[in-house]
Protein backbone atom coordinates (compact mmCIF):
# COMPACT_ATOMS: atom_id res chain seq x y z
CA UNK A 1 0.00 0.00 0.00
CA UNK A 2 2.71 2.44 1.05
CA UNK A 3 6.29 1.78 0.06
CA UNK A 4 9.22 3.90 1.19
CA UNK A 5 12.50 3.04 -0.50
CA UNK A 6 15.90 4.50 0.33
CA UNK A 7 14.53 7.83 1.47
CA UNK A 8 17.11 10.34 2.59
CA UNK A 9 16.45 13.80 3.93
CA UNK A 10 18.49 16.41 5.68
CA UNK A 11 17.50 19.81 7.00
CA UNK A 12 20.27 22.41 6.94
CA UNK A 13 23.02 19.78 6.84
CA UNK A 14 21.36 17.94 9.73
CA UNK A 15 20.54 14.43 8.47
CA UNK A 16 17.12 13.28 9.65
CA UNK A 17 16.42 10.26 7.46
CA UNK A 18 19.39 8.25 6.20
CA UNK A 19 18.22 5.68 3.72
CA UNK A 20 14.90 4.59 5.15
CA UNK A 21 13.03 1.56 3.80
CA UNK A 22 9.54 0.85 5.05
CA UNK A 23 6.70 -1.14 3.58
CA UNK A 24 3.18 -0.91 4.88
CA UNK A 25 0.64 -3.42 3.62
CA UNK A 26 -3.06 -3.00 3.25
CA UNK A 27 -4.89 -3.46 6.56
CA UNK A 28 -1.76 -3.00 8.64
CA UNK A 29 -1.97 -0.98 11.83
CA UNK A 30 1.56 0.25 12.21
CA UNK A 31 3.02 2.28 15.05
CA UNK A 32 6.08 4.33 14.15
CA UNK A 33 8.10 4.75 17.31
CA UNK A 34 11.38 6.34 18.15
CA UNK A 35 12.95 8.96 20.41
CA UNK A 36 12.46 12.67 19.73
CA UNK A 37 14.12 13.74 16.52
CA UNK A 38 14.36 10.22 15.10
CA UNK A 39 12.47 11.25 11.97
CA UNK A 40 8.92 10.03 12.64
CA UNK A 41 7.18 13.22 11.59
CA UNK A 42 9.57 13.71 8.68
CA UNK A 43 8.68 10.22 7.45
CA UNK A 44 4.96 10.96 7.73
CA UNK A 45 5.29 14.32 6.05
CA UNK A 46 7.34 12.73 3.28
CA UNK A 47 4.55 10.23 2.64
CA UNK A 48 2.08 13.11 2.50
CA UNK A 49 4.32 15.05 0.13
CA UNK A 50 4.75 17.96 2.53
CA UNK A 51 8.47 17.25 2.85
CA UNK A 52 10.38 16.55 -0.35
CA UNK A 53 13.03 13.85 0.21
CA UNK A 54 16.56 14.45 -1.11
CA UNK A 55 16.55 10.98 -2.63
CA UNK A 56 14.52 7.79 -2.59
CA UNK A 57 11.06 6.84 -3.77
CA UNK A 58 7.74 6.79 -1.97
CA UNK A 59 4.78 5.09 -3.59
CA UNK A 60 1.20 5.02 -2.39
CA UNK A 61 -0.90 2.28 -4.00
CA UNK A 62 1.84 1.76 -6.55
CA UNK A 63 2.08 5.37 -7.70
CA UNK A 64 4.87 7.79 -6.92
CA UNK A 65 3.74 10.54 -4.60
CA UNK A 66 5.70 13.16 -6.53
CA UNK A 67 3.67 12.83 -9.70
CA UNK A 68 0.23 13.91 -8.75
CA UNK A 69 -1.72 15.19 -5.77
CA UNK A 70 -4.78 12.97 -6.18
CA UNK A 71 -3.29 10.13 -4.12
CA UNK A 72 -3.95 12.30 -1.06
CA UNK A 73 -7.63 11.56 -1.61
CA UNK A 74 -6.78 8.12 -0.21
CA UNK A 75 -5.26 9.54 2.97
CA UNK A 76 -6.78 11.05 6.09
CA UNK A 77 -4.16 12.91 8.09
CA UNK A 78 -4.13 14.08 11.67
CA UNK A 79 -1.23 16.52 12.10
CA UNK A 80 0.84 16.59 15.26
CA UNK A 81 0.31 20.21 16.16
CA UNK A 82 -3.16 21.37 15.34
CA UNK A 83 -2.49 24.71 13.73
CA UNK A 84 -5.58 26.20 12.19
CA UNK A 85 -6.28 29.52 10.54
CA UNK A 86 -6.93 31.63 13.62
CA UNK A 87 -9.78 33.82 12.41
CA UNK A 88 -12.01 30.98 11.22
CA UNK A 89 -14.80 29.53 13.30
CA UNK A 90 -14.91 25.77 13.87
CA UNK A 91 -18.03 25.34 11.71
CA UNK A 92 -16.41 27.38 8.91
CA UNK A 93 -13.25 25.31 9.00
CA UNK A 94 -15.24 22.07 8.75
CA UNK A 95 -17.29 23.50 5.91
CA UNK A 96 -14.21 24.72 4.10
CA UNK A 97 -12.32 21.42 4.23
CA UNK A 98 -15.51 19.66 3.22
CA UNK A 99 -15.88 22.00 0.27
CA UNK A 100 -12.26 21.59 -0.82
CA UNK A 101 -12.17 17.86 -0.45
CA UNK A 102 -15.79 16.82 -0.70
CA UNK A 103 -17.64 13.77 0.54
CA UNK A 104 -17.39 13.78 4.32
CA UNK A 105 -19.49 10.92 5.63
CA UNK A 106 -19.62 11.19 9.39
CA UNK A 107 -19.03 14.80 10.32
CA UNK A 108 -22.21 15.22 12.42
CA UNK A 109 -21.73 11.92 14.22
CA UNK A 110 -18.13 12.82 15.16
CA UNK A 111 -19.08 16.30 16.32
CA UNK A 112 -21.60 14.69 18.65
CA UNK A 113 -19.16 12.01 19.84
CA UNK A 114 -16.52 14.54 20.88
CA UNK A 115 -19.00 17.13 22.14
CA UNK A 116 -17.94 19.94 19.83
CA UNK A 117 -21.40 21.48 19.26
CA UNK A 118 -20.91 24.23 21.87
CA UNK A 119 -17.71 25.33 20.11
CA UNK A 120 -18.96 25.36 16.52
CA UNK A 121 -19.41 29.12 16.49
CA UNK A 122 -16.20 29.92 18.33
CA UNK A 123 -13.03 31.03 16.63
CA UNK A 124 -10.29 28.43 16.49
CA UNK A 125 -7.82 30.74 18.20
CA UNK A 126 -10.08 30.81 21.27
CA UNK A 127 -10.16 27.03 21.80
CA UNK A 128 -8.17 25.12 24.40
CA UNK A 129 -5.47 22.69 23.28
CA UNK A 130 -7.61 19.64 23.96
CA UNK A 131 -10.64 21.01 22.11
CA UNK A 132 -8.44 21.91 19.15
CA UNK A 133 -7.20 18.34 19.10
CA UNK A 134 -10.82 17.12 19.08
CA UNK A 135 -11.57 19.34 16.09
CA UNK A 136 -8.41 17.94 14.53
CA UNK A 137 -9.71 14.40 15.07
CA UNK A 138 -13.10 15.23 13.56
CA UNK A 139 -11.33 16.68 10.50
CA UNK A 140 -9.17 13.59 10.09
CA UNK A 141 -11.89 10.99 10.59
CA UNK A 142 -14.78 12.62 8.75
CA UNK A 143 -13.65 11.34 5.36
CA UNK A 144 -13.78 7.62 4.88
CA UNK A 145 -10.37 7.17 3.19
CA UNK A 146 -8.55 3.83 3.07
CA UNK A 147 -5.36 5.16 4.70
CA UNK A 148 -5.24 6.91 8.08
CA UNK A 149 -2.14 8.73 9.28
CA UNK A 150 -2.24 9.85 12.91
CA UNK A 151 0.66 11.90 14.25
CA UNK A 152 0.48 11.95 18.06
CA UNK A 153 -3.32 11.62 18.18
CA UNK A 154 -3.51 11.54 21.97
CA UNK A 155 -1.95 14.95 22.65
CA UNK A 156 -4.04 16.98 25.08
CA UNK A 157 -7.00 14.61 25.21
CA UNK A 158 -8.86 13.94 28.44
CA UNK A 159 -9.42 10.26 29.45
CA UNK A 160 -12.97 10.20 28.11
CA UNK A 161 -11.95 11.58 24.72
CA UNK A 162 -9.02 9.14 24.67
CA UNK A 163 -11.40 6.19 25.12
CA UNK A 164 -13.58 7.53 22.32
CA UNK A 165 -10.54 7.89 20.09
CA UNK A 166 -9.58 4.27 20.74
CA UNK A 167 -13.09 3.12 19.88
CA UNK A 168 -12.86 5.15 16.69
CA UNK A 169 -9.56 3.57 15.74
CA UNK A 170 -10.93 0.09 16.50
CA UNK A 171 -13.85 0.79 14.16
CA UNK A 172 -11.50 1.85 11.37
CA UNK A 173 -9.35 -1.22 11.99
CA UNK A 174 -12.42 -3.41 11.66
CA UNK A 175 -13.14 -1.81 8.30
CA UNK A 176 -9.74 -3.06 7.15
CA UNK A 177 -8.10 0.33 6.84
CA UNK A 178 -4.36 0.89 6.75
CA UNK A 179 -3.39 2.93 9.78
CA UNK A 180 -0.12 4.66 10.65
CA UNK A 181 0.32 6.02 14.16
CA UNK A 182 3.07 7.78 16.02
CA UNK A 183 2.84 8.15 19.76
CA UNK A 184 4.95 8.33 22.87
CA UNK A 185 2.28 6.63 24.96
CA UNK A 186 3.30 2.98 24.82
CA UNK A 187 0.17 1.60 26.46
CA UNK A 188 -1.89 3.30 23.74
CA UNK A 189 0.33 1.84 21.03
CA UNK A 190 0.09 -1.63 22.57
CA UNK A 191 -3.68 -1.43 22.50
CA UNK A 192 -4.11 -0.33 18.91
CA UNK A 193 -1.11 -1.37 16.82
CA UNK A 194 -0.25 -4.80 15.47
CA UNK A 195 3.12 -3.90 14.00
CA UNK A 196 5.95 -1.72 15.29
CA UNK A 197 8.49 0.19 13.27
CA UNK A 198 11.18 1.60 15.51
CA UNK A 199 13.22 4.43 14.05
CA UNK A 200 16.58 5.40 15.43
CA UNK A 201 18.70 8.18 14.02
CA UNK A 202 16.97 8.17 10.67
CA UNK A 203 17.01 4.41 10.08
CA UNK A 204 14.70 1.48 10.73
CA UNK A 205 16.06 -0.19 13.85
CA UNK A 206 13.27 -2.69 14.29
CA UNK A 207 10.36 -3.75 12.14
CA UNK A 208 8.05 -6.51 13.34
CA UNK A 209 5.03 -7.53 15.36
CA UNK A 210 4.34 -6.67 18.98
CA UNK A 211 5.12 -10.24 20.02
CA UNK A 212 8.43 -10.21 18.17
CA UNK A 213 9.61 -7.05 19.83
CA UNK A 214 8.75 -8.44 23.25
CA UNK A 215 10.39 -11.80 22.68
CA UNK A 216 13.49 -10.25 21.09
CA UNK A 217 14.08 -7.99 24.08
CA UNK A 218 12.75 -10.51 26.64
CA UNK A 219 10.47 -7.89 28.16
CA UNK A 220 6.85 -8.21 29.26
CA UNK A 221 5.62 -4.91 27.86
CA UNK A 222 6.35 -2.54 25.02
CA UNK A 223 7.57 0.30 27.18
CA UNK A 224 10.40 -1.78 28.62
CA UNK A 225 11.15 -3.34 25.25
CA UNK A 226 11.70 0.10 23.73
CA UNK A 227 13.74 1.15 26.75
CA UNK A 228 15.94 -1.91 26.22
CA UNK A 229 16.57 -0.85 22.62
CA UNK A 230 17.54 2.62 23.69
CA UNK A 231 19.81 1.40 26.46
CA UNK A 232 21.55 -0.98 24.10
CA UNK A 233 22.11 1.75 21.56
CA UNK A 234 23.23 4.50 23.89
CA UNK A 235 25.04 2.44 26.55
Amino acid at each position, binding site marked *: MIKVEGVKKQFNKNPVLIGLDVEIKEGDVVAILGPNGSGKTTLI*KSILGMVVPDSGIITVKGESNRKDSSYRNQIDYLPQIANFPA*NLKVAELLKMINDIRGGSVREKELIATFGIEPFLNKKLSKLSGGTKQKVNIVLAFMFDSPILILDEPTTGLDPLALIKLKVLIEEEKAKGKTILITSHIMSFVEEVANRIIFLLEGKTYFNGSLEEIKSQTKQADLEHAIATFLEKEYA
Partner: protein
Amino acid sequence: MLKVLKYSFYDLGRSRWSYIYFCFYLALGFVLLFLNNDLSKAIITLMNVIIVLVPLIGTIFGVMYYYNSVEFTELLLAQPIKRRNIFLGQYLGISISLSLSLLLGIGIPFMIYGLLKSAAIFDFFLLLLTGAFLTFIFVALAFNISLRNENKIKGFGYAVLLWLFLAVIYDGIFLMSLMVFEDYPLDKFSLIGTLLNPIDLSRTLILLKLDISALMGYTGAVFKNFFGTSSGMIISIVSLFLWIIFPVFAFVLKARTKDF
Protein backbone atom coordinates in the same frame (compact mmCIF):
# COMPACT_ATOMS: atom_id res chain seq x y z
CA MET B 1 -7.24 26.70 -7.45
CA LEU B 2 -10.55 28.54 -7.52
CA LYS B 3 -11.52 27.11 -4.15
CA VAL B 4 -8.24 28.24 -2.59
CA LEU B 5 -8.74 31.63 -4.21
CA LYS B 6 -12.26 31.76 -2.82
CA TYR B 7 -11.17 31.09 0.74
CA SER B 8 -8.16 33.41 0.61
CA PHE B 9 -10.45 36.09 -0.65
CA TYR B 10 -13.00 35.32 2.03
CA ASP B 11 -10.29 35.40 4.68
CA LEU B 12 -8.98 38.76 3.44
CA GLY B 13 -12.52 40.12 3.24
CA ARG B 14 -12.66 39.73 7.00
CA SER B 15 -9.25 41.16 7.65
CA ARG B 16 -9.12 44.62 9.13
CA TRP B 17 -6.19 45.54 6.90
CA SER B 18 -8.11 45.30 3.64
CA TYR B 19 -10.49 47.94 4.99
CA ILE B 20 -7.74 50.17 6.34
CA TYR B 21 -6.12 50.09 2.92
CA PHE B 22 -9.46 50.84 1.26
CA CYS B 23 -10.26 53.71 3.64
CA PHE B 24 -6.80 55.16 3.15
CA TYR B 25 -7.30 55.39 -0.59
CA LEU B 26 -10.81 56.70 -0.14
CA ALA B 27 -9.54 59.50 2.09
CA LEU B 28 -6.63 60.18 -0.25
CA GLY B 29 -8.93 60.48 -3.24
CA PHE B 30 -11.28 62.91 -1.49
CA VAL B 31 -8.48 65.04 -0.06
CA LEU B 32 -6.66 65.31 -3.38
CA LEU B 33 -9.80 66.32 -5.22
CA PHE B 34 -10.69 68.81 -2.51
CA LEU B 35 -7.23 70.40 -2.61
CA ASN B 36 -6.70 70.37 -6.36
CA ASN B 37 -10.19 71.06 -7.52
CA ASP B 38 -9.09 69.70 -10.88
CA LEU B 39 -9.30 66.12 -12.03
CA SER B 40 -6.20 66.02 -14.24
CA LYS B 41 -4.04 67.68 -11.62
CA ALA B 42 -5.32 65.33 -8.95
CA ILE B 43 -4.41 62.42 -11.20
CA ILE B 44 -0.78 63.55 -11.38
CA THR B 45 -0.52 63.87 -7.61
CA LEU B 46 -2.23 60.53 -7.26
CA MET B 47 0.27 58.95 -9.62
CA ASN B 48 3.15 60.02 -7.44
CA VAL B 49 1.47 58.54 -4.40
CA ILE B 50 0.38 55.32 -6.10
CA ILE B 51 3.74 54.64 -7.61
CA VAL B 52 5.46 54.72 -4.26
CA LEU B 53 2.77 53.41 -1.93
CA VAL B 54 1.24 50.55 -3.92
CA PRO B 55 4.56 48.68 -4.08
CA LEU B 56 5.12 49.24 -0.37
CA ILE B 57 1.68 48.00 0.60
CA GLY B 58 1.90 45.11 -1.88
CA THR B 59 5.20 43.83 -0.49
CA ILE B 60 4.34 44.25 3.18
CA PHE B 61 0.85 42.84 2.77
CA GLY B 62 2.13 39.92 0.70
CA VAL B 63 4.77 38.96 3.25
CA MET B 64 2.37 39.44 6.15
CA TYR B 65 -0.34 37.36 4.53
CA TYR B 66 2.05 34.54 3.72
CA TYR B 67 3.36 34.27 7.27
CA ASN B 68 -0.11 34.60 8.76
CA SER B 69 -1.55 31.85 6.62
CA VAL B 70 1.18 29.24 7.09
CA GLU B 71 -1.30 27.14 9.09
CA PHE B 72 -3.90 27.39 6.38
CA THR B 73 -1.26 26.42 3.81
CA GLU B 74 -0.21 23.38 5.84
CA LEU B 75 -3.81 22.29 6.18
CA LEU B 76 -4.23 22.56 2.41
CA LEU B 77 -0.99 20.73 1.67
CA ALA B 78 -2.36 17.54 3.24
CA GLN B 79 -5.42 17.75 0.98
CA PRO B 80 -5.54 16.48 -2.58
CA ILE B 81 -4.66 19.84 -4.13
CA LYS B 82 -1.62 20.60 -6.24
CA ARG B 83 0.97 22.81 -4.57
CA ARG B 84 0.98 25.13 -7.53
CA ASN B 85 -2.74 25.71 -7.12
CA ILE B 86 -2.46 26.40 -3.41
CA PHE B 87 0.10 29.14 -3.87
CA LEU B 88 -1.35 30.59 -7.05
CA GLY B 89 -4.77 30.69 -5.40
CA GLN B 90 -3.43 32.57 -2.40
CA TYR B 91 -1.40 34.90 -4.61
CA LEU B 92 -4.40 35.79 -6.75
CA GLY B 93 -6.52 36.17 -3.61
CA ILE B 94 -4.30 38.91 -2.16
CA SER B 95 -3.48 40.59 -5.44
CA ILE B 96 -7.10 40.83 -6.52
CA SER B 97 -8.32 42.03 -3.12
CA LEU B 98 -5.61 44.72 -2.91
CA SER B 99 -6.34 45.83 -6.47
CA LEU B 100 -10.04 46.02 -5.63
CA SER B 101 -9.34 48.18 -2.57
CA LEU B 102 -7.35 50.51 -4.79
CA LEU B 103 -9.95 50.55 -7.53
CA LEU B 104 -12.87 51.24 -5.18
CA GLY B 105 -11.00 53.51 -2.79
CA ILE B 106 -9.88 55.84 -5.54
CA GLY B 107 -12.68 55.19 -7.96
CA ILE B 108 -15.50 56.27 -5.63
CA PRO B 109 -14.30 59.85 -4.94
CA PHE B 110 -13.41 60.39 -8.57
CA MET B 111 -16.79 59.08 -9.70
CA ILE B 112 -18.57 61.43 -7.34
CA TYR B 113 -16.49 64.27 -8.69
CA GLY B 114 -17.72 63.65 -12.20
CA LEU B 115 -15.01 61.49 -13.68
CA LEU B 116 -17.33 59.89 -16.18
CA LYS B 117 -18.07 63.22 -17.87
CA SER B 118 -14.44 64.27 -17.82
CA ALA B 119 -11.85 63.86 -20.56
CA ALA B 120 -9.40 62.52 -18.01
CA ILE B 121 -11.20 59.19 -17.73
CA PHE B 122 -8.64 57.28 -19.80
CA ASP B 123 -5.73 58.74 -17.88
CA PHE B 124 -7.49 57.69 -14.74
CA PHE B 125 -8.02 54.14 -15.91
CA LEU B 126 -4.43 53.86 -16.98
CA LEU B 127 -3.43 54.99 -13.52
CA LEU B 128 -5.59 52.30 -11.91
CA LEU B 129 -4.28 49.70 -14.34
CA THR B 130 -0.73 50.61 -13.42
CA GLY B 131 -1.66 50.39 -9.74
CA ALA B 132 -3.03 46.90 -10.33
CA PHE B 133 0.11 45.90 -12.23
CA LEU B 134 2.31 47.14 -9.40
CA THR B 135 0.19 45.23 -6.86
CA PHE B 136 0.50 41.96 -8.79
CA ILE B 137 4.25 42.48 -9.27
CA PHE B 138 5.09 43.32 -5.69
CA VAL B 139 2.88 40.66 -4.12
CA ALA B 140 4.67 38.12 -6.34
CA LEU B 141 8.04 39.47 -5.20
CA ALA B 142 6.83 39.30 -1.60
CA PHE B 143 5.89 35.62 -2.05
CA ASN B 144 9.38 34.95 -3.36
CA ILE B 145 10.87 36.53 -0.28
CA SER B 146 8.64 34.81 2.26
CA LEU B 147 8.88 31.35 0.65
CA ARG B 148 12.65 31.58 0.91
CA ASN B 149 12.75 32.86 4.50
CA GLU B 150 11.26 30.92 7.39
CA ASN B 151 12.23 33.72 9.74
CA LYS B 152 9.50 36.37 9.73
CA ILE B 153 11.74 39.22 10.82
CA LYS B 154 14.20 38.46 8.03
CA GLY B 155 11.36 38.20 5.55
CA PHE B 156 9.95 41.58 6.55
CA GLY B 157 13.43 43.08 6.48
CA TYR B 158 14.11 41.90 2.94
CA ALA B 159 10.67 43.06 1.85
CA VAL B 160 11.23 46.59 3.13
CA LEU B 161 14.73 46.65 1.63
CA LEU B 162 13.39 45.53 -1.73
CA TRP B 163 10.84 48.31 -1.73
CA LEU B 164 13.38 50.89 -0.58
CA PHE B 165 15.77 49.79 -3.28
CA LEU B 166 13.29 49.90 -6.16
CA ALA B 167 11.42 53.01 -5.02
CA VAL B 168 14.28 55.18 -3.81
CA ILE B 169 17.83 53.85 -4.06
CA TYR B 170 17.52 52.61 -7.64
CA ASP B 171 16.66 56.08 -8.88
CA GLY B 172 19.55 57.54 -6.93
CA ILE B 173 22.07 55.13 -8.43
CA PHE B 174 20.51 55.63 -11.82
CA LEU B 175 20.77 59.42 -11.71
CA MET B 176 24.29 59.27 -10.31
CA SER B 177 25.47 57.05 -13.11
CA LEU B 178 23.80 59.31 -15.66
CA MET B 179 25.81 62.19 -14.22
CA VAL B 180 29.09 60.31 -13.93
CA PHE B 181 28.92 58.99 -17.48
CA GLU B 182 27.41 62.06 -19.06
CA ASP B 183 30.13 62.16 -21.74
CA TYR B 184 28.92 58.87 -23.18
CA PRO B 185 25.74 58.13 -25.13
CA LEU B 186 23.33 56.97 -22.46
CA ASP B 187 20.11 56.35 -24.38
CA LYS B 188 20.28 52.58 -24.31
CA PHE B 189 21.56 52.47 -20.78
CA SER B 190 18.69 54.55 -19.49
CA LEU B 191 16.15 52.60 -21.52
CA ILE B 192 17.33 49.34 -20.01
CA GLY B 193 17.57 50.94 -16.59
CA THR B 194 13.92 51.93 -16.80
CA LEU B 195 12.76 48.52 -18.01
CA LEU B 196 14.53 46.84 -15.09
CA ASN B 197 12.56 48.70 -12.44
CA PRO B 198 8.78 48.24 -12.43
CA ILE B 199 8.26 51.48 -10.52
CA ASP B 200 10.17 53.56 -13.09
CA LEU B 201 8.41 51.68 -15.82
CA SER B 202 4.99 52.57 -14.43
CA ARG B 203 5.94 56.19 -14.01
CA THR B 204 7.13 56.39 -17.62
CA LEU B 205 3.98 54.67 -18.81
CA ILE B 206 1.67 57.15 -17.11
CA LEU B 207 3.70 60.19 -18.07
CA LEU B 208 3.76 59.07 -21.70
CA LYS B 209 0.00 58.95 -21.65
CA LEU B 210 -0.40 62.23 -19.85
CA ASP B 211 2.19 63.72 -22.19
CA ILE B 212 3.66 66.08 -19.64
CA SER B 213 7.20 66.58 -20.86
CA ALA B 214 8.14 68.70 -17.87
CA LEU B 215 7.63 65.74 -15.56
CA MET B 216 8.96 63.09 -17.85
CA GLY B 217 12.60 63.55 -17.00
CA TYR B 218 15.47 62.21 -19.00
CA THR B 219 14.35 58.60 -19.20
CA GLY B 220 10.82 59.53 -20.16
CA ALA B 221 12.14 61.76 -22.93
CA VAL B 222 14.46 59.02 -24.19
CA PHE B 223 11.60 56.56 -24.07
CA LYS B 224 9.39 58.86 -26.07
CA ASN B 225 12.06 59.65 -28.65
CA PHE B 226 13.02 56.06 -29.01
CA PHE B 227 9.63 54.42 -29.22
CA GLY B 228 7.13 57.22 -29.76
CA THR B 229 4.12 57.48 -27.48
CA SER B 230 2.04 54.51 -28.61
CA SER B 231 4.75 51.89 -29.06
CA GLY B 232 6.41 53.22 -25.91
CA MET B 233 3.23 52.46 -24.03
CA ILE B 234 2.90 49.02 -25.55
CA ILE B 235 6.49 48.17 -24.67
CA SER B 236 6.07 49.33 -21.09
CA ILE B 237 2.85 47.36 -20.64
CA VAL B 238 4.49 44.23 -22.06
CA SER B 239 7.43 44.73 -19.72
CA LEU B 240 5.09 45.10 -16.76
CA PHE B 241 3.48 41.80 -17.77
CA LEU B 242 6.89 40.16 -17.82
CA TRP B 243 7.51 41.64 -14.39
CA ILE B 244 4.48 39.68 -13.16
CA ILE B 245 5.19 36.46 -15.03
CA PHE B 246 8.80 35.95 -13.96
CA PRO B 247 8.33 36.42 -10.20
CA VAL B 248 5.19 34.25 -10.25
CA PHE B 249 7.09 31.55 -12.12
CA ALA B 250 9.94 31.83 -9.61
CA PHE B 251 7.76 31.40 -6.52
CA VAL B 252 5.80 28.52 -8.02
CA LEU B 253 9.10 26.79 -8.77
CA LYS B 254 10.36 27.41 -5.24
CA ALA B 255 7.09 26.18 -3.71
CA ARG B 256 7.46 22.86 -5.52
CA THR B 257 10.51 21.81 -3.55
CA LYS B 258 9.89 23.51 -0.22
CA ASP B 259 9.45 21.46 2.95
CA PHE B 260 6.60 22.22 5.33
